[in-house]
């Protein structure tokens, strides 16, 4: 998902930076608002940021004989809605661009758009649709977290195809080529990430029930009035 430093033509780099910037700025405001209005969220917000920090640091082998990174942006998008992840995801990318030479400053906008904007929104939408279709929390978390991962890599493939359309096969052919590198490798990773998301939410439903109820993830349990009603 990390397009390397200098690997997007300047016009594309600028365009994606301009496209991602409003989302990141809005996300920064969303984080500040969340922390100010609900200070008790800070702990869970830290967990959401930490989840994407760990997962995006790990390269995992896949059936294609290549390895790739999970993204870890799904749980935060489900818990706090996607804007929050636009900021947290960009912080992760900035860390990797500056310290690890992974991704880059010129490609930060494009990478942020894929990793911190499209991924979280796609995952959140998938989560909401799955729940609206009547599924329980955990199946919806699985679908949402896995799709946040996969959608990020599909976006990266599209960004590269737009920048380097093949003369003979055109945009569709180039997109197929990049999807072949990224998306296929990513499928087992997305499934694994979905399972980790389920594990995280299993732990949270037991230990962070008040927060999940306040965030609308769980319905408030009927108050145990001891049969007074």
């Amino acid at each position, binding site marked *: 998902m990390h397009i390397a430093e200098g690997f997007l033509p300047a016009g594309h780099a600028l365009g994606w930076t301009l496209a991602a910037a409003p989302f990141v700025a809005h996300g920064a405001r969303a984080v500040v608002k969340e922390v100010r209005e609900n200070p008790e969220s800070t*702990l869970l917000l830290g967990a959401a940021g930490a989840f994407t920090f760990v997962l995006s640091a790990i390269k995992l082998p896949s059936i294609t004989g290549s390895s790739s990174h999970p993204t870890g942006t799904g749980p935060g998008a489900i818990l706090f809605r996607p804007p929050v992840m636009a900021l947290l995801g960009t912080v992760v990318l900035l860390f990797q661009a500056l310290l*690890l030479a992974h991704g880059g400053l010129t490609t930060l906008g494009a990478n942020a758009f894929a990793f911190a904007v499209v991924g979280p929104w796609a995952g959140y939408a998938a989560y909401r649709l799955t729940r609206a279709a009547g599924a329980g929390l955990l199946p919806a978390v699985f679908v949402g977290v896995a799709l946040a991962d996969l959608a990020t890599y599909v976006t990266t493939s599209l960004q590269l195809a737009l920048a380097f359309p093949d003369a003979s096969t055109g945009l569709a052919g180039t997109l197929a080529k990049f999807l072949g590198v990224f998306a296929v490798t990513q499928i087992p990773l997305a499934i694994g990430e979905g399972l980790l998301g389920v594990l995280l939410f299993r732990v949270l439903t037991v230990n962070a029930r008040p927060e999940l109820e306040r965030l609308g993830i769980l319905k408030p349990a009927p108050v145990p009035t001891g049969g007074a009603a």
Partner: protein
Amino acid sequence: MTRRALVNALLVVAVVALFAVPLLVDGGTSGYGGTDAAVTEELEADGYTPWFESFFSPAGEVESGLFALQAALGGGVLGYVLGRLRGRRTAATATATAIAAATATTTTSGGTAAEADRR
């Protein structure tokens, strides 16, 4: 082991298996190069030259150390939060149990006092 803990353990096993099985099946024939690097190599082979270089590019060993640091920071914070949340729940349960026990004692002694009044 409770059913909940068992399911959690099985989830961990499933995730490990998902990544261990490809490694075992191909018997070490694949290089597991990163997809990010595969794309840049392909673009460079097609004649593209990157127009900007990273300010700081750590050597291979340093890079893997920094990746480990990133994972450690994330894992540390995640573990801290989950540990605190769990501690909060167990503490709340313990308090609730203590209050229930205290209430029961009060009720009992209250009952005794009432009985004493009647006598």
